[in-house]
């Protein structure tokens, strides 16, 4: 993968009245990258996307596309296309006419339009539906038409606003893989806005986590998951068990007086308020003697998920029950029931410590 940036977002600010929707975000998006903008609703991700498409103008900062400032270029003059969350298909046009529309705006010849639309219809498996109107299509089909309509223009960057939001869960899973395949096939930079962290983890090459208009972290899904920048990111991406306390030499002292070993982040001195965190899948039941962080909990609830079992454990470490994932294997070997006392533990290297 080349690393040349296609899009440089430089200290971009967007205010609506007294509300600052996007607050000084700086990001660099690379050629052919599948990039995800992730955050809870109201974090500014959609506003940022609309600025990239040209529907909003930043109040500060710059948006550079291939080195040229496009901050004030209107949407119809940007080599960037947006796939709308509602799909925004033209209801009075057939699937074919919807897809051809963008090429007609470029005043391409009729033969070129025809061949490119045909090609796109087959890439997105829509050929059989070419003459249908949008209201004769299912949700998944509409989604593919919206995608085809944007892709056929071969934009430098394709923006996708919650592309899978309107689909049911099973179809969403299939479309995540399908979108990745398509992105690979057409070789276009994709920027996806989503509030679904799982979607971002599955699809993105890199992801940016936003909250209250600010960028919290931008990295690969693996890095974001394993080394979250702060407690919010840790809790937002995947599931995390937290335990409040104050820092000591090599970890934190929890409320019950026990010590949780782990590396302190830079700049966090001993004696300050902190949160220790550990992922459910890093916690072992009946840990071997070498494991340093250990405690005993009472089983409060059991949730069977087929592939694994989730235990809710009441421990002296935290007010909230600890979530522990046990493989079906382990669960079979050591059957547990509500009320059982279990010893758990995890390695110091699996502890993450955050400022609190």
């Amino acid at each position, binding site marked *: 993968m080349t690393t040349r940036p296609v899009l440089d977002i430089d200290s971009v600010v967007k205010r609506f009245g007294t509300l600052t929707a996007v607050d000084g975000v700086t990001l660099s998006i690379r050629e052919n990258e599948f990039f995800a903008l992730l955050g809870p609703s109201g974090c500014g991700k959609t506003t940022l996307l609309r600025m990239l*498409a*040209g*529907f909003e103008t930043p109040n500060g900062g710059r948006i550079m596309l291939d080195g040229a400032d496009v901050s004030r270029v*209107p*949407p*119809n*003059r940007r080599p960037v*296309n*947006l796939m*709308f969350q*509602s799909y*925004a*298909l*033209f*209801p*009075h046009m057939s699937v074919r006419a919807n897809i051809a*529309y*963008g090429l007609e*705006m*470029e005043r391409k010849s009729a033969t070129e339009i025809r061949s490119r639309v045909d090609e796109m219809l087959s890439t997105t498996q829509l050929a059989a539906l070419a003459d249908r109107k949008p*209201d004769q299509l299912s949700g998944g089909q509409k989604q593919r038409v919206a995608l085809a*309509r*944007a892709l056929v*223009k071969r934009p430098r960057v394709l923006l996708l606003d919650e592309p899978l939001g309107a689909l049911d869960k099973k179809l969403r899973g299939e479309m995540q893989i399908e979108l990745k395949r398509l992105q690979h096939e057409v070789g276009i930079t994709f920027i996806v806005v989503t509030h679904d962290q799982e979607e971002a983890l599955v699809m993105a090459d890199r992801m940016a986590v936003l909250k209250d208009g600010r960028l919290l972290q931008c990295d690969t899904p693996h890095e974001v998951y394993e080394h979250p920048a702060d407690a919010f990111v840790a809790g937002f991406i995947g599931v995390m068990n937290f335990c409040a306390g104050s820092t000591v030499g090599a970890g934190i002292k929890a409320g019950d007086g026990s010590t949780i070993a782990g590396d302190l982040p830079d700049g966090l001195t001993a004696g300050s308020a902190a949160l220790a965190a550990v992922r459910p899948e890093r916690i072992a039941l009946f840990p071997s003697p070498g494991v340093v962080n250990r405690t005993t909990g009472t089983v409060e609830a059991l949730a069977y998920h087929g592939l694994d079992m989730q235990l809710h454990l009441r421990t002296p470490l935290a007010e909230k029950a600890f979530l522990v994932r046990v493989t079906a294997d382990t669960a079979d070997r050591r059957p547990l029931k509500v009320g059982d006392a279990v010893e758990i533990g995890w390695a110091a290297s699996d502890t993450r410590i955050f400022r609190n």
Partner: protein
Amino acid sequence: MADRSRAARQAGTTVLVLVFAFLYVPIAVLVALSFNEGGLPTVWSGFSVKWYVSLASNRDILSAALNTLIVAVASTVISTLLGTLLAIGVEIRRRRGGALEALVFAPMIIPDIVLAVALLSFFSMLDLTMGLHTIVLAHVVFNLAFVCAVVRARLKSFDWSITEASADLGASAFTTFRRVTLPVILPAVVAGALLALTLSVDEFIIAFFTAGAGRSSTTLPMQIYSMIRFGITPEINALATIVMAVSVIALAISQRLNRGMVGR
């Protein structure tokens, strides 16, 4: 129990029949008498279309009909054009939090006679020579509000993201209007135009006030009014029947278009 509910139902049906009779018997009588052979307006003496034939040779009526056509078509075209643009403008403003709605619909609610007097004073103040053109202007005033109302109703359920999609795909604002916005709201625009046409064809008070003197700007309703002062003739019945038929057809098409839109 069953008897009582049947009796109640019969009573209900009777009331319904009476109400509809009250509404439609006079019109039915008018239509029937327009085909009356004899000259007496209220005595049936055989079927004939001779009054329709005699209408066709009545120069006053023909010129009034032509005037009405001119006024109706001109005011419909102008008010449809402006009313549609107004509806879009008002809706965009409303989405941005601006309030303009009540102001737009005022001409629909203001009594015709008030509007008529106001327009007459206004035209005199401007020293405008009255004639067909002032009737057209006056009709545009209220038709604009009606067209705007019909188009606004459609725009309430309009998905504005398709206009953004059009811009995103490279279309200018004008192209977006021509290829996306207008085709989608077209049924409402046509419905509004037909409503405007209907309203203009049978409008009397405002036309009467703003027509000025002389036969050259007499419209059909004014013609009927001046004829009726000498008594109701079968000719008037025939004329009224034609006017009504035109209005009913235009209104039916308009409603059909509106219903089609809601159905989608």
